[in-house]
């Protein structure tokens, strides 16, 4: 059985999809309503927009830092100590050039 995705929900009248999900806990109509109930926001659209304007290779250095590798790694006994990484930029950098 193919993986059920949100795109399947866009066609709730498609009986094939309904048959495919008959063993799931929710039916397609319910599923799309449930997703809308959870949140009206769609951050994936914003992500897509930013990705299209991104310049290749810029920022790659960040993922080579010891801090990032420690964060993304499997962690050890003190796993909880590396669960959040905060990347912060100093206000004012470059503002001269946008005025």
């Amino acid at each position: 059985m193919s993986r059920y995705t949100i795109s399947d929900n866009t066609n709730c009248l498609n009986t094939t999809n309904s048959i495919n999900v008959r063993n799931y806990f929710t039916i397609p109509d319910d599923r799309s309503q449930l997703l809308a109930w959870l949140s009206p926001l769609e951050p994936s659209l914003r992500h897509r927009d930013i990705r299209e304007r991104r310049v290749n290779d810029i920022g790659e250095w960040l993922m080579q830092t010891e801090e990032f590798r420690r964060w993304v790694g499997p962690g050890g006994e003190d796993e909880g100590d590396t669960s959040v990484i905060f990347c912060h930029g100093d206000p004012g950098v470059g503002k001269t050039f946008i005025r």
Partner: protein
Amino acid sequence: MEIRGSVRRLSGNKDYLQRGEGSQSILTRRYDSSLVVDRLCAQANGHNTAVTCFYFDFASRKEQSTTSMLGSLVKQLITGMERIPEEISRAFQEQKKAIGGCGPQLNDLVKMLQTITSLRPTFMCIDALDECVGVQRVRLLDSLKQILERSPATRIFVTGRPHILAEMEKRLPRRLISLPVCPTRSDIIGYLRVRMGEDETLDAMNANLEAEILETIPNNLSEVCVQAIILRTKSHDIR
């Protein structure tokens, strides 16, 4: 004047224009966020790992409440699941009994995320947390803390301006890695080259102006970035 006009045109995208302060930094951070999301997604492909993202925007602060933000994370996590966790489905059915139905409560969303993130390693990438303001940010950080307490394998990537660092350290004690972000010289030059290549006003650009832009902007930005590098060195020393 000429170089400023060219830069204004080159930087004429939404990320630059939305803010007067620190736009280069914000632009870089925002690109970093999307880059990290894509890299994590590539690594997660074929593995039992989930990646979610959220981009805060001050202009959308009314819509981006803590509940709608956390709800969107739940939504991203269950979208790819064949079966929706019973706890979530039950909460959805129960709310229908309320007057006209009502949105999920913060406590319910935290419990949902605690449950889902316990099922598999989960990355949450949150961009521009400083643009989530007031009590909403307090609620969000406290919610993230509760999620991490139940699901220590969860990893959270956050970008934002440094003024919220102390607040984050307070709300997420002993969990935080601090990493100052500053564009490298090659980042700046690479970005400028691409944007100049996309400039539609060809008559306004010539070889001398292009060389001047590539020389002047990275040099001036680099001076400011020295402060961030010093700050970063200090943060290493403190640890």
